[in-house]
């Protein structure tokens, strides 16, 4: 394996080569502490407020893809091969404000101003996203999603949404002007070497191939495997854990691959939530909606499916959906692979079926077929950027005779692991798929789960809603079902432009 002991990236258009980088030094602490670039703010140090939002450009199939991420929980060394843009890069060379900055000024989008640089960067990322229409009113849902990871306590958001609308017609800026040279520079930084840096005896390793990854994990069985760091970042910023060896998967070619196997999708462990949303969302609209509500834009751009599974959290949002769909997990140990049903990976709270030296390589998700009914529900205090109180994902197969032949009812937040409701499933099998069956399944849930009470929800609420969601699922599967979802209600029949952008009427 070729080794490289430098971290190379672009800060704006400026090449940076760093050595002896602390493996868990965050991008934010580097920007503010070392570079004294004070525009990027720390609001929470856990990736939940967006005040630290920066934009990272990386080469994807030869083109630079720009995405907003949280600098507070991203390790600096993971920027190897990337371009980092901060709020200081947006002003034009002549000192004039960038159109997204000017729009925020024009629309009174800042009050205290502390969250503003983060919003500006999210707006910038939205502005240059491929999904954004070049003209016409930007869909409000699109704006809400782009800004869901940025909290503002002053404005109430309306003027910021107005600013997003104002800049919907994008014209090339100085960052676009530099794109050809940036593309060449990033291409020149890409290599197949294992990057190794660190200090004080702690190491950061970033392989470039799956085989390198397998070798490194095998030879460093105690290493912490890091993908988007949207959870591990908090171990460092909140719990001040000292990680002696970090193996970063984000450079590994092939680990972020999505393969269509006809009757199933295979997602590499490094597939981000953003990429998974596009692929899984095509299987079922509820998967699109569920993934839309994983974290927020900055988290989805960094966090991965593999990380969401591997860390074994009982409240990760993708495992219930993947378990309901009958997904299987492929683990790799050196050159060996083994595959197991995803549900079997979760042994107990904090304990997974993963041996030292082993890592999650991919997950294979069967596509729902004929007669399959599917739904995914996430219940949380707030719709966006919140952690589930519970997550419920159901797959029920109804045979030609109208009887339930298969029931996979998977829940998160109801036990120490993502878990299927065996008794409730049994209550459905062989019965007509009707309200009575759903009610019986709901009653059976009490045998399946003894949920906890905590700050997200009480045990009583979790159990009641877990059952009510079965009633809802059944109701929704009836033709001409009445409306059952408040979020769908919100987007129905609403004019895209309300009068938030209008001038203040005043005598």
């Amino acid at each position: 394996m070729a080794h490289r002991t430098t971290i190379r990236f672009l800060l704006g258009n400026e090449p940076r080569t760093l050595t002896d980088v602390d493996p868990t030094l965050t991008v934010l602490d580097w920007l503010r502490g070392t570079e004294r670039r004070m525009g990027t703010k720390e609001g929470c140090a856990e990736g939940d407020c967006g005040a630290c939002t920066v934009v990272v450009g990386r080469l994807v199939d030869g083109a630079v893809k720009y995405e907003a991420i949280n600098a507070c929980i991203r390790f600096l060394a993971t920027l190897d091969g990337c371009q980092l843009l901060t709020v200081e890069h947006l002003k034009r060379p002549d000192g004039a404000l960038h159109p997204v900055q000017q729009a925020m000024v024009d629309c009174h989008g800042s009050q205290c101003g502390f969250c503003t640089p983060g919003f500006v960067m999210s707006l910038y990322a939205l502005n240059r996203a491929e999904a954004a229409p070049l003209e016409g009113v930007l869909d409000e849902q699109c704006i809400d999603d782009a800004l869901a990871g940025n909290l503002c306590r002053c404005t109430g958001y309306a003027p910021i949404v107005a600013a997003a609308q104002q800049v919907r017609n994008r014209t090339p800026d100085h960052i676009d002007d530099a794109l050809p040279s940036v593309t060449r520079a990033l291409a020149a930084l890409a290599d197949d070497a294992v990057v190794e840096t660190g200090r004080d005896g702690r190491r950061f390793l970033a392989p470039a191939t799956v085989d390198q990854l397998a070798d490194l994990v095998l030879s460093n069985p105690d290493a912490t495997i890091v993908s988007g760091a949207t959870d591990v970042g908090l171990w460092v910023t909140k719990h001040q854990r000292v990680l002696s060896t970090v193996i970063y998967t984000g450079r590994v070619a092939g680990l972020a691959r999505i393969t269509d196997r006809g009757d199933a999708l295979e997602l590499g462990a490094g597939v981000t939530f953003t990429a998974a949303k596009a692929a899984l969302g095509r299987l079922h609209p509820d998967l699109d909606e569920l993934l839309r509500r994983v974290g927020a834009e900055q988290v989805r751009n960094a966090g991965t499916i593999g990380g969401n599974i591997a860390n074994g959290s009982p409240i990760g949002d993708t495992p219930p959906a993947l378990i309901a769909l009958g997904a299987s997990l492929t683990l790799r140990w050196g050159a060996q692979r083994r595959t197991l049903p995803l549900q079997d990976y979760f042994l107990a709270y904090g304990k997974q079926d993963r041996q030292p030296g082993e890592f999650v390589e991919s997950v294979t998700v069967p596509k729902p077929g004929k007669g399959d009914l599917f739904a995914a529900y996430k219940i949380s205090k707030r719709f966006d950027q919140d952690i589930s109180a519970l997550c419920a994902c159901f797959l029920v197969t109804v045979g030609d005779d109208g009887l339930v032949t298969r029931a996979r009812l998977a829940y998160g937040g109801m036990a120490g692991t993502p878990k299927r409701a065996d008794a409730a499933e049994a209550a459905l099998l062989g019965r007509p798929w009707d309200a009575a069956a759903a009610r019986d399944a709901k009653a059976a849930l009490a045998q399946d789960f003894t949920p906890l009470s905590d700050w997200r929800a009480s045990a009583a609420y979790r159990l009641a809603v877990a059952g009510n969601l079965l009633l809802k699922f059944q109701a929704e599967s009836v033709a001409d079902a009445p409306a059952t979802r408040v979020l769908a209600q919100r987007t129905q029949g609403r004019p895209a432009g309300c009068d938030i952008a209008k001038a203040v009427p005043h005598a």
Partner: protein
Amino acid sequence: MPDKTPIDISAVTPRRIDGAVHDSRRHESAHKHVSGEALYVDDIAEPAGLLHVQLGLATRAHARVLSLDLDDVRRAPGVVAVFTAADIPGDNDIGAGLRHDEPLFAEDVVQYHGHPLFAVAAETRDQARRAAQLAKAEYEDLPAVLDIAAARDPGTLVTPPMTLRLGDAEAALKTAPRTLSGRIKIGGQEHFYLESQIAMAIPGEDEDVLVHVSTQHPSEVQHIVAHVLDIPDGAVTVEVRRMGGGFGGKETQANLFAACVALVAKKTGRAAKLRPDRDDDFRITGKRHDFEVDYQVGFDDQGRILATDMLFAARCGFAADLSGPVTDRALFHADNCYFYGNARMSSLPLKTNTVSNTAFRGFGGPQGMVAAERVVEEVAFATGLDPLDVRKVNFYGTTDRNVTPYHQTIEDNIIGPLVDELEAWSDYRARRQAIRAFNAANPYLKKGLALTPVKFGISFTFTPYNQGGALIHIYTDGSIHLNHGGTEMGQGLNTKVAQVVADEFQVDIGRIRITATTTGKVPNTSATAASSGADINGKAAQNAARVLKARLVEFAAGHWNVPQDAVVFTADGVRVGDQLLTLREVVKAAYMGRISLSATGYYKTPKIHWDRAKGQGRPFLYYAYGASVAEVTVDTLTGEYVVDRVDILHDCGDSLNPALDKGQVEGGFIQGMGWLTTEELWWDAQGRLRTHAPSTYKIPACGDRPRQFNVRLVRNSPNVEDTIHRSKAVGEPPLMLGISVLHALSDAVASVADHKICPQLDAPATPEQVLATIERLRERTA
């Protein structure tokens, strides 16, 4: 001498200055906010040798400290010094009002989970954070009182309660045709300013110390630092350029951080900075008080309220802080817009072993108003009337029925016409019908609609705070340096005050240099709080500008030999007789003529007085009004909901800056909505706050804003009082517009029992709370 260029005045086109009063001028720092160039305390260049400070926190809610072993802390890498209560040269007391109930560092007894015990100063922030975890404390647990229910029995109060009486409530309740009673629980609220608390102290010579701190109350920080260090106030300079949000959370809560860094700086001779992690900020700073309000109301079949009796129990935490005036203000707003005829209202400021609660936008007023709206809602359900009709029938009158429970006669009531206008503009009645039809057709989703009004009293109820100061210098190049006692936390105070001064001198606002608030320029200031910032500092700055103008007029008249009334400040320059001079020319001449070009300004609010013992007086100069209509959709299987549409009409008098005021209205509404919906503070059985970061404490996100959000300011409604350019205060009142969302949710919930039962939906109305209320109503109707 300046050139005297005679010009033909009549040929000059009258020009309007840039940034005149009443203009929708952008925030003075907007361009710096968006570019990241605006400096907050943590962005200020750090002095060489700066020490980073962190606090060591208690891990018990109430306990005797048997021993505190800090050896490992001292030995930790990078640690320079560790300080405890024993190291404090002055008084170990940082509470507002200096009652000796709030130490900088706890000594023998810790009174809440998170109570600071010591501070550690290290070379880096990371080292300080790690070292702070290494303390070994031994405790002997004492009984911990954690919530209102537990606090009622011992009934220990942190501050004396207050009672207001109007008429004879007891007698009127006995004779009222109908009566009912109930209790409402209202949750607290974390400020979640985006910039957490922070202070940096730079030691000077002798006793001097300069403190950069994110605070709404520089003068109090100055007093506290002096008190803790046992040095004169004059040795302490406190400076604030801007805060990244305050919302009341930096009125007294910055004292701790400022006192701590000042102590470290003076003890070590090195600059010191303390920026707590967000989790610590949540744990150790006070929040909005949660309340339980018991109410009894007498009324007739027309829904007219004849008497109320209300008891306001508040969780105050372990110390008084501002709980006295906060619970007082709850009572001052327990009438909202309604004439009760006979009323008795009392406060119960309960001591608990939790962080000491503090000011938060509205300052108890919102809790009082939520209780008032519950009372009205109960009457509506009892009489079967639309809640809006019950509200209207109980509105204060303009010539009679206009005396509040604190015996102030309301002289500026506009709530009736304001609500009429909003009712028509929002199409309330037609939407009421449409919603009933929707609910009839939908078994799972239910819509709700509510219109709630706001009347909010403006002035500090602590009368001495109703004064402001300003300082203006004019330099010989004609540039104007403006300073005043208020602080900028995002509300646009500096912009408004600059507009006032620009208007006086008739110069473009760009000529006014806005400068950091500092105790060294304007002393003995009041907190920027109670929505009073523009009212008192705008008037004070206007006063300073007028003093300077008078000097310049007198000088110019003599110098150019014209009558004083021939010297006029215009947008085109200073007209002196038949010539037009630039301000710079006039100022330069005045300097040469040895005229002072610096002036202080001062203002004190007229008319107000308050006798707390009697519960009578005129605590408020005037009232700000507003009303909001909210429409929601609720999922009756999960309790989830969305706010579909909100229409707001709000009164800013003759607004100084409609764009900034609209920002306050929208932002206040969303913050109030968050308080009453998703923002839930959750303590565990050990008294640990478990919702201590944005991952667990959910303020509204962008998608939670109403998709239809129509906000208007009341037109042609100048303040009847002589406030700054007849404007009205706007900081706090709009927060209470968010109450409309709680009532719309309640309306939707009520539909599951055919609107026959008052849902008594408590706050925060989280999805769980909404579902529990739905299930309770279903059980009662089953």
